[in-house]
């Protein structure tokens, strides 16, 4: 007697017996259930994100088109708050100053961060000490940094105060141009460590073989940096640029404590005005309009960077 290990095709096993028609909707139900499950699992996270991210934005948008009285929301005023900013020379001057501040800080901070990260990436004695020293400003709060630099730059007793130059007393914070320059420099001093550490991390991900191959091909150090290093770290540099742009556009504490917007409103930025309108003057509607304008700038700059980054990748 032989035993067959295969089941004759003419005799289906009991388990394969035809099921009643009700089994088809059951499969569909399982399929529906399996497709709903991920959504159900995601829902709390989505709700949380909506609550902490989207709701405040919508709330600010709503505030910006309403009259407000302290924390009470009043009548709808449409775009009146926006017109009081975008329809006046003072409003555009404020936007212009914010641009100068953001672009000026970026132009200094990014190359500085890339350069320092490049230096810190090279083998050298006391490299770790240098890394710690360079990162130190990062741990200082904006308030402390502002007060520290006000003292340092004081012309009478500050170690970095210019005092009298050519018989003329130079008070950095009393001059509109110098005050903006000083504000940008202090901002760069405060923010370059973050950029440096991110770029350094990217540099450490560049394979050494690529540099060695380029070196064998006779590429100079500058050429190796331009053709090998920079393309490899470009995505990180763009991300850092986005982060710094958002940070600079939204910065209040440093400006408020360092210059307070003066002198002659020379450092009165959109972010500071948004803060003062909301929390010093209690004009929450107008303050929200300034915040929404800032938000739009942030989105526009962020999208521009992403577009540049994609273009860079396509090339």
């Amino acid at each position, binding site marked *: 007697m032989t035993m067959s290990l295969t089941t004759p095709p003419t005799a289906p096993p009991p388990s394969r017996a035809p099921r009643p028609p009700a089994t088809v909707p059951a499969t569909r139900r399982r399929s529906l259930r399996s497709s709903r499950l991920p959504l159900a699992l995601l829902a709390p996270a989505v709700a949380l994100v909506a609550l902490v991210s989207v709701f405040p934005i919508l709330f600010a948008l709503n505030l910006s088109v309403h009259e407000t009285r302290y*924390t009470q929301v009043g009548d709808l005023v449409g775009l009146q708050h926006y017109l009081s900013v975008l329809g006046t020379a003072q409003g555009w001057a404020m936007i212009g100053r914010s641009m100068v501040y953001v672009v000026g800080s970026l132009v200094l901070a990014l190359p500085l961060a890339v350069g320092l990260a490049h230096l810190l990436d090279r083998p050298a004695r006391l490299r770790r000490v240098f890394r710690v020293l360079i990162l130190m400003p990062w741990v200082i709060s904006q308030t402390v940094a502002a007060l520290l630099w006000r003292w340092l730059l004081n012309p009478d*007793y500050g170690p970095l105060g210019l005092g009298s130059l050519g018989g003329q007393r130079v008070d950095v914070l*009393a001059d509109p141009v110098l005050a903006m320059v000083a504000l940008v420099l202090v901002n760069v001093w405060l923010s370059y460590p973050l950029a440096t550490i991110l770029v350094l991390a990217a540099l450490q991900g560049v394979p050494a073989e690529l540099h060695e191959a380029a070196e064998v091909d006779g590429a100079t150090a500058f050429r190796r940096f331009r053709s090998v290093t920079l393309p490899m770290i470009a995505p990180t540099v763009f991300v850092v640029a986005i982060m710094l742009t958002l940070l600079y556009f939204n910065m209040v504490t440093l400006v*408020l404590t360092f210059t307070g917007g*003066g002198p002659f409103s020379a450092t009165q930025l959109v972010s500071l005005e948004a803060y003062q309108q909301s929390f*010093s003057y*209690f004009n929450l509607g107008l303050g929200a309009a300034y915040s929404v304008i800032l938000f739009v700038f942030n989105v526009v700059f962020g999208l521009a960077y992403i577009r540049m980054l994609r273009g860079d990748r396509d090339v």
Partner: protein
Amino acid sequence: MRTHLTARRAAVALAAAVALTVPLAACGTSSGAEPGGTSQLELWTFLDPASDDARGKALKQVVEGFNASQDDVEVTVRSINYAQIDAEVIRATSSGQGPDILNVYSTQLATHVDAGTLQPLADVAGADLDTLKDDSIFPFDGVTFDGEVMSVPWEVRAWMLWYRQDLLDQIGASLPTTSAELVDVAARLVAETDVTTGLAIGFSDQGLGADFVEKFIPFTWANGGEVLDGAGEPVFADDAGVAALGMMADLHDAGAFGDEALSMTADDVVQGVAAGTIAMAIEGTQRVGAARAGDGIGDNLQVAPAPFDASGPLPTAVAGQTMGIGANSADPEGAWKFIEYYTSVESATAFAEAGVLPSRSSVYDTDAFSALGNADELRGWREYIAEHGRAEVTSTRFNELSSALVSAGQKAVFQGEDPLAALTAAASAYGG
């Protein structure tokens, strides 16, 4: 079995919900009575009872004294930075979580009343309010809105001329008696001594130009003008306002202060006096003690009414800290009980020891006050306030007023802009 599991899950979920809800509910409670009957009240103030500051120590002494004096009410203190306390109180009150008792600076009082953070005192204070009013050297007009007293002053301050007697002696000058003499002496102090600034006025935008406005208001009054009219509309863009800016421009043009004033706040001025880089200033009496603590300053720093003309000194704005009952307070009677204690002669004496000028006139006549080392000086300040003091300008938008005015001051004094045009622009910015 399945039903049993579901029931168990529901029980666990209920327990978790209760466990989460109870602490949240506790967080939301700002005041209330404990089972024993003690009412728990919270005082929000800029002073910190845990700090080394003399006023903070006095606050601690007063609060502990009150809590020990009776069993019905227990007060705890929440200290909030003075730059943030007004916004914090307004936000908290709007969500029903405001303080039971709150400290409000008199110039911010109109804003608090407008925002509804305070409740009128008449219902709980009754006749006690009249007693306090009769005894106060702080004009009660400054705490009365629509006929309702909204808070009680416990501290009073005036703006007077601070001068370094040793430096005046060094240049052989006597105390100026007119504004013209003031300009002359201040300029000489810069030219003939090591100080950087002869007479400091802070023109910084920081602090919303508070130091500038504290000078602009009495200068305008002295020249016969007003800052706001009875309806709260700006009226400073006139001859008196121009003359007030003119007085400041005279000081600047004579060299009494230079561009360094553009980045000076009231704090910077006081620190400059304490550091010896500023010879004279018109500053608040509440800061004299701090300035005298500077190295080598001590009694060299003297205080006198600021000069104006032969007919008398400059008038002074009178401002100060006040105490009121929060709109959300569940126990206004208990809150008033504390305010009564806080504004008592005993408490005022404790604060006077910390350099605070008492708002109650009767305090100055007590033996405890007379025993203070600076009693005579404080009595002199009280007399100046009584004769030449006016309640500080109040506005629901005082911060905007201040900000607009300092901008006008900067342009007129440092950039040579027409003062009337600068003030008109400020009035428009404020009015708009």
